[in-house]
């Protein structure tokens, strides 16, 4: 069963991060929020595994709800 991979899985992390920021260039905060939502939906479909997605969601939520 697939688990959430917390080790580095990106061949070129810096290029990914640059592309992510670039995706939001010239967008209003509302547009950015909408684009982020679309990105999450696209990536979730790519991942497919609900258990992995739930683990990622829990992890993401914990970054803002726990000290």
């Amino acid at each position, binding site marked *: 069963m697939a688990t959430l991979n917390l080790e580095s899985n990106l061949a070129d992390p810096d290029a990914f991060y640059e592309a992510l920021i670039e995706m939001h260039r010239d967008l209003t905060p509302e547009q950015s*929020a*909408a684009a982020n*939502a*679309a990105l*999450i*939906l*696209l990536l979730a*479909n790519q991942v497919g595994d609900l258990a992995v997605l739930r683990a990622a969601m829990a992890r993401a939520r914990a970054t803002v709800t726990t000290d």
Partner: protein
Amino acid sequence: MLNPLPRRTDGATGCAMADPDYQALVFPYVRSPDQDAPAPVRHPAVVVGAGPVGLAAAVDLARHGVPVLLLDEDERLSAGSRAICFAKRTLEIFDRLGCGDRMVAKGVGWKTGKVFFRDAPVYAFDLLPETGHERPAFINLQQYYVEGYLLDRARELANLEIRWRNRVIGIAPDADGVTLTVTTAEGDYRLRADWVIAADGARSTLRALLGLESRGRVFRDRFLIADVRMSAPFPAERWFWFDPPFHPGQSVLLHRQPDDVWRVDFQLGWDADPVEERKPERVIPRIRALLGEGVDFALLWVSVYTFACLRIERFRHGRVLFAGDAAHGVSPFGARGANSGIQDAENLAWKLALVLRGKAPEHLLDSYDAERVPAADENILNSTRSTDFITPKSEVSRTFRDAVLRLARDCPFARRLVNSGRLSVPATLRDSPLNTPDEEPFAGAMVPGAPATDAPVRAGGRPSWFLRHVGDTFSLVHFLGAAEAPPAALRGLAAEAAVPLRALAVALPGADPPAPGDPAVIEDAEGLLAARFDACPGTTYLLRPDQHVCARWRRLDPPRVRAALARATGHA
């Protein structure tokens, strides 16, 4: 027979060919001899509430041979169209009750829908893409027709008595029965019931009298329903708009009904004033905005509603059994209210009939609870999810919703996320205590607990449908091999069974038309029945009186059939 003929208020004379104006019928109160009896008169089954669920329960019970008393506090059928979407499974139940043909002949059949976001179509869906079913995915039919046709059916049954303007105001259950206090224009009287079916709706009096509470989520949103009569070019499809230009920020749903009547459902938001929004001067501009200028229409009925997704904890309370909206509530998105209530009624009727005839122990009725509570939870879950998509409760929820809708134009995956209502499908009673688990491998959807699916067959050389040949009693359906005669054990099992059991053999496609006989033989005309039931020669299904599968095997083995039948009737 104490069913009084209805008095017409429109001055017209009755006509055998056309439907009466069911909304205009008034059913007079008639004094019952029970009101003058020295002691409360005993009735085996009393159904409270003559809505679609109560009428269906009463008709089903009466057809099973149970004398039924149906009480209603009112003197009319549904005012306004109210529930309009009746699902395939409900139509199959109506077929069994003997009024499906009228419903389907009058109703507007549909199976496709379109979803729009702002000013553009997002995608279209088909709820029944395969052929080979007698009934369509859905019909739209005003609730007063459904009630009217059920009532007409009820009036054909000599053991079904209806008392209008008989309102239950007291209920006192004990170990042997239930004492009901009923109030009428001529005072109160008491009745004894062996069993009571509470089908008295979302604001159930019986639920309140027994101190039971429905728990769940109440949604802070208001919706406007408007029925309009017009000649419109729209097809018979379900159209749903998210955030359309003619009603910005909210959703709109359009359905076609018979008689050139169209249902428009506008989301209004929580702050809308329910009294103001009902006024024609508010409603007409909203409809005009949808239809455009130059379309003539007449406003027939308007309602503003809110809703909740909730249920009572248990549906069986001793000798009182709750069904339909009295037991559970859902949002209207998905047409899961009336449809699930009719399934409650069907689930209950055959069990109660067997218990009343002494053919099954009382605890068979616990399976009503065990089967219909999970079914209600499934409906509540689907309905709640739809509601959260249609009416996002937070900014981020709306952001995701709109992102889904934008992606759905080009991305098939996102279309599966669009939720404008997951339309009613019957519950598969997977965890029912009445099921016998499979011991052999089977593929497909006809698992124990599933409602049997339909397929075209030939019977007596004529085209027919599978579901017309099963139901009301248990059915033992045995698939034959080439040129094989029905095994003697098939008829033997039916003859010896303690409960009514019909033996039915299924011949391969192209087999010579079998002569009518015992057991009955139907021909699997197109091979679809075997395909849908994953059947090969020897495969045997045990179906319940409500057409749900309760056991299946790869060969006919009498001891296993007997054990499964005992389990399905609460004897194991």
